[in-house]
């Protein structure tokens, strides 16, 4: 991978790892818990059954030897004998008869025995058992009533009133259970590790196509429309890659079609202007002849001849402007930069058109406004703005130039052209640089081609400058051009 994805904590890889780990933990713990529950129940059940059976056998074997009604010492000996039937187990036995009771171990309080259980044994005359939690761990308490056999006494099979209770600690059973829990815990850790490894593998499998998609999308955005993805497999990501490729192909085709149309339009404009230019070249060559000879013709013919001559010159200028605009549209306009003194350049522009006395100027001193500009385009800018002010505004027209040095940027030459006319109507102001825009539909055709200000704006933008039109508070329009003065290029 050349570039790491700048993912925050919620990255796809992290999410996958967390999800896999969760699944592993949940699965292991659930399995463990179910196994544990089943095993625990079985274990306890088995232990209980064994204890109860052994206890009953013990009681049955000892009970016939008890004299009736028993004394406290009889009870004591009964309990001890029952306890001895299971020497290995830690049995504590208590025998009761009415209010009398005795335990196998002297002084044993038999706190595990609840009154409810004691009553239950007395009334139901059945074996009763209960698991109780004591301070030393869980214990099983079993109660057995001793009944008279029909042959033993007077034939009544009633309860004898004698009851035996057993308390046996269940430490060993608890040990099995603990071992089970530990086993489950130990199983969880490797399962987690395996889950994380699997998650990383899966993440790689998912992330690789996702990364490829991402970088391909970026390449498309950068204009490399020929970018395609290699498609492996047939999963959803492969489907997405297919869709991406189809979309890219469609996009490439559309863009190519647009380019073809644009090229056709551009070629058409170039062809049209070329076709116009050749007859115009012939006509323009002879306008001087017409002008010279018009004086010797009869008045009507002379007027017609002069009209043709004048309009030919205008037509030539219009075609020239159209050519210029279409070159800007085609991106074929080049800057021929040369270092000049802008103040001198502006002065020459005005002088070459005989405007040095009609337009008041405020120019910086010589050599303070030097910079690299295209002299021809600067001449076009100045001539168009000044010409526009003279045509549409009213005199006096003024031109001012200052040099501004914004911190951290190229110094700027700021040229302002102001007239003293009525200004530009508010609804026209946003459109003054539009092509062929006429501020007043009823206005007759003016001397300009209707492209002058558009060409001016294009020339300013080509230099990386800005142009704005506004109305002055005191009346009159002002056009402001800011050109960067590149000094070291």
């Amino acid at each position, binding site marked *: 991978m050349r570039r790491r994805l700048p993912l925050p904590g919620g990255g796809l890889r992290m999410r996958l790892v967390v999800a896999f780990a969760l699944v592993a933990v949940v699965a292991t713990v659930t399995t463990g818990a179910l196994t544990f529950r089943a095993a625990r129940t079985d274990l306890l059940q088995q232990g209980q059954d064994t204890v109860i059976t052994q206890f009953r056998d013990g009681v049955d074997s000892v009970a016939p030897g008890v004299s009736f009604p028993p004394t406290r010492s009889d009870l004591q000996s009964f309990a001890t004998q029952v306890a001895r039937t299971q020497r290995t187990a830690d049995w504590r036995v208590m025998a009761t008869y009415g209010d009398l009771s005795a335990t196998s171990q002297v002084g044993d309080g038999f706190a595990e025995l609840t009154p409810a259980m004691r009553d239950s044994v007395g009334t139901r005359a059945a074996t009763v058992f209960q698991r109780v939690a004591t301070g030393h761990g869980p214990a099983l308490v079993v109660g057995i009533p001793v009944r008279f056999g029909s042959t033993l006494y007077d034939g009544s099979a009633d309860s004898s009133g004698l009851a035996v209770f057993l308390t046996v600690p269940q430490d060993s059973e608890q040990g099995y259970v603990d071992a089970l829990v530990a086993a489950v815990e130990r199983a969880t850790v490797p399962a987690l590790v395996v889950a994380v490894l699997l998650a990383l593998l899966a993440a790689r499998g998912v992330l690789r196509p996702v990364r490829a998609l991402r970088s391909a999308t970026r390449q498309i955005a950068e204009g490399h429309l020929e970018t395609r993805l290699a498609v492996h497999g047939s999963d959803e990501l492969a489907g997405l890659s297919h869709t991406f490729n189809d979309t890219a192909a469609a996009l490439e085709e559309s863009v190519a079609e647009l380019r073809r149309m644009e090229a056709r339009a551009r070629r058409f404009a170039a062809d049209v202007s070329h076709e116009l230019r050749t007859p115009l070249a012939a006509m323009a060559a002879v306008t001087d002849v017409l002008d010279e000879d018009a004086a010797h013709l009869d008045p009507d013919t002379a007027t017609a001849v002069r009209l043709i001559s004048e309009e030919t010159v205008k037509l030539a200028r219009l075609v020239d402007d159209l050519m210029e605009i279409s070159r800007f549209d085609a991106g074929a306009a080049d800057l021929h930069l*040369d270092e*000049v003194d802008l103040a001198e350049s502006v002065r020459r522009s005005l002088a070459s058109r005989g405007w040095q006395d009609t337009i008041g100027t405020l120019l910086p001193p010589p050599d303070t406004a030097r910079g690299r500009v295209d002299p021809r385009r600067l001449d076009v800018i100045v001539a168009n703005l000044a010409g526009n002010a003279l045509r549409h505004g009213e005199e006096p027209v003024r031109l001012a130039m200052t040099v501004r040095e914004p911190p951290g940027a190229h110094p700027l030459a700021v040229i302002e052209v102001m007239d003293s006319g009525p200004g530009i109507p508010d609804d026209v102001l946003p459109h003054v640089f539009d092509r062929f825009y006429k501020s007043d539909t009823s206005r007759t055709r003016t001397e300009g081609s209707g492209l002058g200000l558009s060409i001016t704006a294009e020339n300013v933008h080509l230099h990386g400058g800005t142009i704005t039109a506004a109305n002055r508070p005191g009346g009159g329009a002002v056009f402001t051009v800011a050109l960067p003065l590149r000094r070291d290029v």
Partner: protein
Amino acid sequence: MPRLLLIEDDRAVREGVELALRRQGHDVAAVATGEDGMDRLRSFRPDVVVLDLMLPGMTGLEVCRRIRADNQVPIIMATARGDDVDIVVGLEAGADDYVVKPVQARVLDARIRAVLRRVGGGSDGGDGLPQPETHDDLSIDRAGLTVARQGVPVPLAPSELRLLLILSAAPGRVFSRQQLLEAVWEHSYHGDSRLVDACVKRLRTKLGEPPGQPRFIRTVRGFGYQFSRFTDPARPASR
């Protein structure tokens, strides 16, 4: 009466320009192809050639190169504006000036007269010198309008000669492109400075300057061009 050869393929333009220029007092020969133009060049011996760049068959550029192979007659190209590359290539092929079509006859006439003035020489400083001046191994005869390097004559087109005369008249002085445009081509201040650059390039080649290390005509970045100041061989330089 200046003799003018017009090479233009479009009949209407050719007839219009021919008519207008004849009225301006030129002796005009007009042909439609480059091949015819090369023929008339020898028989008509024009003072100036007006050449359309877009010609069927032999192109204007090719005609320009062939003329320049053995002839320093002034050449004015007629081009369509926007054919920027063609203009540069045309200038480097040896054209002295260019006009953009459509052009009014009086503008073309002014350019023709300006280029003819270049051939005639005239006051460009340092005139009246009885003998050729020398700059290192380059000798310039301002009266005879000839230039020689190491004794070998260097044939120069009118613009090249004029440019060299102006630059060398003040060694060490820096001329801006605008100044040279006005002085050599009589163009406006806002003329095409590529004329100057192309002419300097041609001049350097003809003077045998090593590429990238010009000895005679130096470029002053951001300002223009200057002619090198060489120490007078008659007076040993003080070290």
